[in-house]
């Protein structure tokens, strides 16, 4: 089974603390993601979002690309994150424009800050989602909570 990101509310188990040098690191853009009509329609159907051919993608659609960037961060053996013990604590999007069918998107993730509170690593990340021309489409900010001790 591949790396996992616990999306919300999961409890914790014992694992190593995250390397303090992680703050400020940037992870190279993940492989381009081609936004096809089928993928947008599938995402819209899965979230019950009304969708007609030619509509922009649902607002949260860029999570698909940002999620791939987060998976890359967590799969990096130098980072020291225990994948199963990460809770998705917060997610925010700021859009330059909606995502449309035909876009080729890439995401580059930066670790903005790393704090330790009550035995948990609070990892604040931002990902720049860009199109084929390199223009910014949206910025996604995720806070990942990595529990370092058992409750």
């Amino acid at each position, binding site marked *: 089974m591949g790396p996992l990101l616990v*999306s919300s509310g999961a*409890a914790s188990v014992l694992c190593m603390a995250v390397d303090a040098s992680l703050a400020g690191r940037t992870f190279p853009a993940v492989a381009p993601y081609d936004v096809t009509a089928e*993928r947008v329609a599938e995402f819209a159907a899965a*979230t*019950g979002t009304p969708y007609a051919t030619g509509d922009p993608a649902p607002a949260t659609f860029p999570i698909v690309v940002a999620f791939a960037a987060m998976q890359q961060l967590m799969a990096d053996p130098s980072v020291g994150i225990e994948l199963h013990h990460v809770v*998705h604590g917060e*997610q*925010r999007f700021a859009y330059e424009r909606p995502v449309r069918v035909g876009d080729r998107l890439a995401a580059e993730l930066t670790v903005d800050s790393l704090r330790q509170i009550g035995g948990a690593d609070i990892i604040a990340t931002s990902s720049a989602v860009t199109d084929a021309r390199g223009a910014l489409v949206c910025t996604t900010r995720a806070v990942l909570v990595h529990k370092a001790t058992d409750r």
Partner: protein
Amino acid sequence: MTGWAEGLELPTHTYRVTRADLVRYAGASGDRNPIHWSDRVATSVGLPGVIAHGMFTLALAGRAVDSWAGAPGRVRALGAKFTRPVVVPDDDEGAEVVVTGAVKSVEDTREGQLVTVAMTVTSGADKVLGMPTATFLGGPGAGDRVG
């Protein structure tokens, strides 16, 4: 028809979430974490049972925002903290997610009016999202706002 104004209460939207929805969302989003489909795994990490993806719940908030804005693609910002899980029982009813919103501020820009809404997103008695907010371009006559 009145325009967008601070304090304007927006229509409430109620959505149902079933296990089948979570399976579809896992496939569409790439988030295949078993806590969103396996009671065995969910309870092993201390959850009461299978929970919805936080991003699924935020997508429902996004649906409400599209509805208020009157068209898709008008959203300029959307976000929340994932504070409480939406527990989705293994039955045909699933869980209910209720999204309410009120206009927090209105800013006139070259593009038009940028409307920022503060939402409340609940499932049962729980507020499941923390500080859910959205900003969208509110065109004249757009949306299902109460005018």
